[in-house]
C-alpha cells in the first residue's frame, strides 16, 4: 500500500485515476485549486488548495504522500494567462519543492503531446527527445511547455524523488471534458477545408492505466509519450462521432474558432493547426519499460466519448 496525493482531482481523469488506485488498495487523497465538485465521491478525501499558496504545504505535511501524481495541469484557456501560469508553472515548482522537502519517492507529472506543436515539417512518429514547437506559434501553450520543461529537468537532475513525465495524445472518453472531447460531442463542428491530418486518441481507461504504471513501475524516470493503437484521419474521427463537419477555409478557421469559443465550447485556437498538420507520437519507450498495453481501440474510444450525447435530430 502506498500513500498517493493526486492533484487536479476535481477533473475527471484525476478522479478516475485516484479511484482506480484506491481500488488497488492504496491510500489516496485528492487536492485541487477548484471548489469540491458536488458529485465528488465521499470515500475520496478532497482538499481545496491553490498549488502556489501555503495551504498546499499543509496538505503535503499532513498526508505525507510517498507518491505525488500531479495530474492537475490547467488547460482551461478561459482562465487568465497569469492565473494559468501561476498554477501550472509556479504551482508545479512549489509542488516539486514540497515533494523534496517531505521526501516523496515518486512524482508523476501529466503533460500533453500538444507541446510538440502541429507543424507541416513534423515527421512520423515523434519521439520524446524532439523539440517542442508549440510555444513559438502559440503563446497560449507556453505555460504547458514550461511545466513540461520544469518536470523534465527534475527527472534528470534529481535522483529523488524519481520523476516521470507523461505526454499523452488526445485523451477522450465518456467522462472526459477536455477541449477535444467536448468538440467531438458537438452536433455540428468546423474543420479546416482541404486538410485532413492523421490523429491519435487514447481512451480514459488506458490513460489511467498508464498513470498507474508510471506510479508503480520501479526505477522509472524520465519523459514518456503515451499513445494508443491506431491512427486515423481527423475527418474519419468526426464521422465516427456522428458530428456534421463544416469545412472552413483555413484563414477563416482560426478567427471563427476564436469567436465561437467566446460563446460556447469550441476548439482552442492552437488546436486549429492540429486540424491541419499531424502530430503522431511514438510511445514505444513507455511500452518497453512498463509493459503498457492499451486496451481500447480508437473507434471504440471515439464511440464511447459521444455515447452520452443524443444525436437524434
Amino acid at each position: 500500500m502506498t500513500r498517493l496525493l493526486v492533484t487536479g482531482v476535481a477533473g475527471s481523469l484525476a478522479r478516475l485515476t485516484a479511484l482506480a488506485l484506491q481500488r488497488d488498495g492504496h491510500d489516496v487523497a485528492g487536492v485541487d485549486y477548484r471548489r469540491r465538485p458536488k458529485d465528488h465521491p465521499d470515500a475520496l478525501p478532497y482538499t481545496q488548495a491553490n498549488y502556489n499558496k501555503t495551504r498546499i504545504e499543509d496538505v503535503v505535511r499532513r498526508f505525507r504522500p510517498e507518491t505525488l501524481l500531479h495530474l492537475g495541469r490547467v488547460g482551461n484557456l478561459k482562465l487568465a494567462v497569469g492565473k494559468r501560469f501561476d498554477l501550472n508553472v509556479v504551482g508545479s515548482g512549489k509542488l516539486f519543492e514540497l515533494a523534496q522537502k517531505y521526501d516523496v519517492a515518486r512524482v508523476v507529472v501529466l503533460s500533453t503531446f500538444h507541446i510538440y506543436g502541429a507543424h507541416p515539417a513534423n515527421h512520423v512518429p515523434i519521439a520524446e527527445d524532439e523539440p517542442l514547437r508549440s510555444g513559438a506559434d502559440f503563446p497560449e501553450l507556453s505555460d504547458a511547455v514550461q511545466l513540461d520543461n520544469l518536470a523534465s529537468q527534475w527527472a534528470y537532475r534529481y535522483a529523488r524523488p524519481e520523476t516521470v513525465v507523461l505526454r499523452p495524445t488526445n485523451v477522450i472518453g465518456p467522462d472526459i471534458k477536455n477541449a477535444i472531447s467536448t468538440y467531438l460531442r458537438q452536433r455540428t463542428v468546423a474543420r479546416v477545408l482541404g486538410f485532413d491530418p492523421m490523429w491519435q486518441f487514447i481512451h480514459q481507461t488506458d490513460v489511467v492505466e498508464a498513470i498507474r504504471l508510471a506510479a508503480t513501475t520501479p526505477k522509472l524516470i524520465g519523459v514518456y509519450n503515451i499513445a494508443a493503437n491506431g491512427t486515423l484521419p481527423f475527418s474519419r474521427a468526426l464521422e465516427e462521432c456522428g458530428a456534421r463537419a463544416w469545412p472552413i477555409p483555413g484563414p477563416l478557421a482560426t478567427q471563427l474558432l476564436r469567436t465561437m469559443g467566446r460563446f460556447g465550447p469550441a476548439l482552442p485556437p492552437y488546436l486549429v493547426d492540429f486540424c491541419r498538420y499531424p502530430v503522431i507520437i511514438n510511445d514505444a519507450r513507455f511500452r518497453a519499460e512498463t509493459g503498457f498495453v492499451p486496451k481500447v481501440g480508437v473507434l471504440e474510444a471515439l464511440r464511447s466519448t459521444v455515447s452520452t450525447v443524443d444525436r437524434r435530430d
Partner: protein
Amino acid sequence: MIGDLAKASLDPEVVAAFDRLAIRTDELGYDPWGFHRDSARVLYSLSRQLARYFRPVVTGLENLPEGRVLIVPNHSGQLPFDGMVIAVTMLLEAQPPRLVRAMAERWVPTLPFVGEAFSRSGVVVGDPINCKNLLEHDNAILVFPEGARGSGKPWARRYRLEAFGRGFMRLALQTGTPIVPVSVVGAEESIPSITALPWLAKRLGVPYIPVPPHLPLLGPLAYLPLPTRFYVDFGAPLTFEGPYDDEDEAIQEKVDVVQATVQGMIDARLALRPGVFT
C-alpha cells in the same frame, strides 16, 4: 455520390497491383503517415490516366532490387509529373509491383487538398526520420536530390543537373540501401519556363514561379503541360559503403558519383530520342 464516382474511376490493373502489394496498414487501412489503400487505388487510377498523356517509354525496371531501395532521378518540369510517372510505372510495370514512397518538400503539407491527396497516396514529408523509418521497413523511397531547384529550372538550364543534396546519401549509408539512378527525359519540355522569377517568388513565399514563353499568348492555358513523351530509364543499382556521419566532403564524393551517373543517363537518352513529342 463521390464514393460511386471513385469506384467507377478505379482502374482494374491498379486494383490488381494494389492487391499484390504487401503494405503495413492498421485495421482501418491507414498507415501512420496517412497512406490509405482504398484512397490510393482511386488516386493511382487517376494518375495513370494523366501519366498516359505523356506516353512514357520505360527501360531498366529489372534493375529494381528487392526490398529497400532509394530511387534517385533528376527533377524537372515545374509540376511533379516526373514523380507521378515514376510512381505509376513502379506500381504497374515493376515485377512485383512496388509502392514508391515519394519524399515531398516540407511546405507541401501546407497546400490544401494537395497535401491530403499526396499523403493518402503514400507521399511523406522529406525528413530523415520518415525516410529512415520507411527504409528500415524495406520500402522504396523516391527522392529528388535537386529539390525545387530542379523542378523550377528555366529552359536555358534544361537537362543540366542542379547540385544534388547530400541527405539521401547519408540515409543510404546508414540503412544499407542501394541507390537506383533514374533519368527522366521529356518532362523538362512539358512546361517550359523562361525564368523562375526568383525575386517575386521570394516575396510570395513560393519556391519558384514558372513563366512559359507562350504565357502572353495563351494566358493561364500556357501552364497546361505539352504532350511531350517521357523517357524513364532505371539504371543499375549503386551501393556505397562508409560511415553515414562522415564529413561533408567525403559524402559529397559519393553524391557526385550518383549525380554523374544520372547526368550520363540523361545525355545518353537525349542523344537517342527521335524528338520531344515522339
